[in-house]
């Protein structure tokens, strides 16, 4: 029981913290799905879990994510260099399809998110899509803007090269700054001493 829920609650504790990044939402759900798929045999035997049950758990993870999911989650996850290795390793361990927790593939979700951001501006859509394409095929050497994976993604995007990512930079900066849960807002109310005010009662 403890083993089954350990990863879920580790992710939960991380996501309610101040330091959690928006890109980590999708990553946490992937980590939980991976944990369910790779439960130790003794735990599976103790909990009487068959392969069908593990598939059902995966479906539950997808279903739960869908209640809050927007393509922007996939875009944030895809544009955070910290999770590049995680994505590659999970794709190798399971299949590429394992990474798709939404209805479409991650790249399709990203394109959908960009399309929603630009609304009807076709030219801007094309520019942002091409910049996103440049990001996905970038060479990961020491001169890369995103080499220091231990920085927060919003900091890396703030320092990204304007000549390459001029259109994509600002929207992604805003997205990566988004809070992961209601806890951040609640904390904000508390620190501003607005928990019990005339406006909120």
């Amino acid at each position, binding site marked *: 029981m403890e083993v089954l*829920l350990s990863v879920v609650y580790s*992710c*939960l504790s991380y*996501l309610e913290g101040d330091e959690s990044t928006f890109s980590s939402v999708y990553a946490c759900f992937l980590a939980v799905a991976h944990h369910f798929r790779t439960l130790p045999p003794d735990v599976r035997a103790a909990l009487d*879990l068959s392969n069908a049950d593990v598939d*059902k758990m995966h479906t539950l993870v997808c279903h739960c994510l869908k*209640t809050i999911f927007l393509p*922007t989650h996939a875009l944030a996850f895809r544009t955070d260099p910290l999770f590049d290795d995680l994505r590659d390793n999970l794709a190798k361990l399971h299949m590429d399809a394992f990474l798709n927790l939404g209805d479409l593939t991650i790249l399709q979700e990203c394109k959908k998110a960009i399309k929603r951001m630009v*609304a009807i501006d076709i030219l801007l859509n094309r520019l942002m899509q091409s910049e996103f394409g440049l990001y996905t095929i970038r060479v990961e050497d020491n001169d890369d803007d995103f080499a220091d994976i231990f920085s927060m993604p919003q900091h890396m995007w703030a320092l990204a090269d304007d000549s390459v990512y001029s259109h994509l930079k600002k929207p992604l900066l805003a997205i990566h700054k988004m809070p992961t849960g209601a*806890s951040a807002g609640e904390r904000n109310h508390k620190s501003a001493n607005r928990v019990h005010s005339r406006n909120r009662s």
Partner: protein
Amino acid sequence: MNEHFVGAPMFTFYSDSPSVMIKLRRLCIQDTEFLFAFGCSPHVLHNLCMDLVKEFPVVKLIVKQIVFLVKSVCKIHLIQQLFDKICKEKYGITLVFILFTKTRWGTVRDAAKRLNRVWTAMCQLPTEIMSNDLDVDLPNDLKDLILTASF
């Protein structure tokens, strides 16, 4: 579009009512004025745990057993005192049980973890009652569960 992202104010809505929040999110997604409408991810992970407890019979049974054990020991004062004494002898400190509560994040895992930690003290309860000749009977259901279950 970029004007949106230059020092754009961010408005957030909070309500204690889940149905209000769900409705609000749905309206925000339908309305093209809003670019994004997100939900609270820790809440969703908590809901996932609740779904696991509901959907899988063995997990549900274990949670039921944990709640039964915790409530049974805590409601009889003499057993609770004896349990504290055994804990003090075994671990050097008294440990309290954690009760699973649906609305408190993490209590499923924490309750199981704590019971796992004090399980040897728990198993010692029936023999301690016999040897101390206490004027208290351990309920049969509780005794059976202590002898058969493993956490």
